[in-house]
């Protein structure tokens, strides 16, 4: 009797959370998938099979956006290597490491629009960067960084790295601090150099965290860069920085076809899910290996 009451109250505790998560996350995802196969004719939503996907993939803009997301993926190796190097330096307890750690994490707490607007002023044709370059006599390097078709996306990528780098550093540093010191001592006894210790102890020991970081950073580049683009370039010049998220935003809230936008969103969702599955299976294999 007592047990029965206990079961009932336990469900009451999780009920509010599941109602809200169901309404805000699960229901929209299901709606999205259904909606991506529907179309509106005569004010009514009817089944349209693959119409939206066909139209979406026929649009060259989708391919441009997809390409731009994939180009942003190139930020990930840069961020991973840089944050690992910085984490190792801080881990060696160089003078001022705590100060450096606080500084590198600072951009992470600033809002993306704030960062984006500051960099827009710094990078524009007559911005601080170009003025400085001109003063140094490097006039030919003074370019409209965000307005140039070839440089706009790399410039946005650099700003993303500037903003996000701290997270990787803090993540890797935390992992390094939990590595068994005796592993390093053993390597030292064997006469390993700094570089050998890095590749033979640090990297293998931190492999799981590195994998995790790479995967979530890829997901970020796929589905978390809207604000940077919205603030800095609005997709321009000439769609050179239009990413999938921005395309979806434009199609859905700029007077486009909701259902096609949903089909594109579903593509993003599938890509993110594939990344998560890859991560999970890597984790699973690692666990098997350690067993």
């Amino acid at each position, binding site marked *: 009797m007592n047990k029965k009451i206990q079961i009932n109250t336990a469900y009451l505790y999780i009920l509010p959370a599941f109602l809200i998560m169901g309404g805000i996350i699960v229901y929209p995802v299901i*709606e999205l998938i259904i909606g991506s196969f529907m179309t509106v004719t005569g004010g009514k939503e009817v089944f349209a099979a693959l119409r939206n996907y066909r139209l979406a993939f026929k649009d060259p803009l989708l391919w441009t956006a997809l390409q731009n997301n994939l180009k942003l993926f190139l930020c990930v190796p840069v961020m991973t290597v840089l944050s690992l190097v*910085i984490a190792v330096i801080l881990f060696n307890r160089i003078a001022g490491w705590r100060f*450096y750690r606080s500084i590198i994490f600072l951009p992470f707490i*600033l*809002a993306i629009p704030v960062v984006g607007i500051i*960099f827009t002023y710094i990078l524009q044709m007559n911005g601080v960067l170009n003025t400085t370059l001109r003063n140094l006599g490097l006039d030919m390097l003074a370019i409209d960084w965000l307005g140039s078709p070839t440089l706009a996306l790399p410039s946005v990528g650099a700003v993303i790295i500037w903003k996000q780098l701290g997270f990787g550093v803090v*993540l890797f540093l935390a992992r390094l601090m939990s590595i068994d010191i005796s592993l390093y001592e053993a390597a030292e006894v064997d006469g390993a150099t700094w570089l050998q210790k890095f590749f033979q102890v640090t990297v293998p020991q931190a492999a799981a965290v590195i994998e995790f970081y790479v995967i*979530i950073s890829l997901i970020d580049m796929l589905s978390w860069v809207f604000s940077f683009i919205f603030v800095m370039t609005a997709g321009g010049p000439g769609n050179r920085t239009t990413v999938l998220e921005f395309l979806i935003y434009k199609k859905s809230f700029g007077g486009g076809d909701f259902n096609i936008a949903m089909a594109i969103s579903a593509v993003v*969702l599938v890509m*993110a899910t594939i990344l998560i599955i890859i991560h999970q299976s890597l984790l699973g294999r690692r666990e098997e290996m350690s067993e």
Partner: protein
Amino acid sequence: MNTRNQSFISKLLSQILMIIMTFSIIMPLYFMFTNSFKERHQYVRDALSLPSPFTLQNYIEAFRGKNFVEWFKNSIILTFCSAAVTMVIALLAAYAFAKLHFKGKRLLFRFIIPLMSVPPVAMIIPQFRMIKTLGMVNTLQSVIIIYTGIMLPMTIYMFRNFLIDIPDSLLEAARIDGCSRFMTLIKIVAPLSVPVIITSSVVNIVWVWNELLIALVFLQKESLRTLIVGITLFRGRFTLNVPVILAGLGIVSIPMIIVYIFAQKHLVEGLLAGSVKG
């Protein structure tokens, strides 16, 4: 001697790299803050020097800007309410997952983890339709619920991992003293959970304060905008007066910089706790 030289060189290189990094991080912030205290003509002439004369005029003007005070108020309401509602609901759920017994507990808990990684852009159109059907577009409540829903999975996950380490003997002692399940949560579990509550709230506060997409889509009325959305759109109208915009950006950033100074440890811990999932 050789190894000592080597270690000196590696230390020197490390310091050089760290100084370059510090410089490249500080520079944009220096740009924002110094120019926000300059008169406009000085900004145009020289954007790198220190303000002379030093002026607070840009801040005054930013605050005088249309609706700026209202935006500030909206941001505070949204941040405070979303973080508080999330905390209460997550604590209830985490308590059940950590300390109560019910069928399907493991399965339901594992179901929460993938919810953390759903791209926001994949949810926004259906969310918008739903909120529209409910007649709740342009209400702060709708955004509070959406923020809560998005923050819940991570918050529950963190709370549960913390609560599971509270010794059962403490809870049993409370029961023997005649505390009900709920009173045990209020009197024993909640006070013990203060560290994780602070940690996750700091993470949530920073996230809500800085959020753009949802606030942009769901709060389209000028008087309901958040500070972040307001400042992002406001830039278009005052493009020429950069110092005023920089002052606005300063106002947006200062609360979070204060949070960072006082709660850096919590913030970092919170972000790390969420990242060991899987």
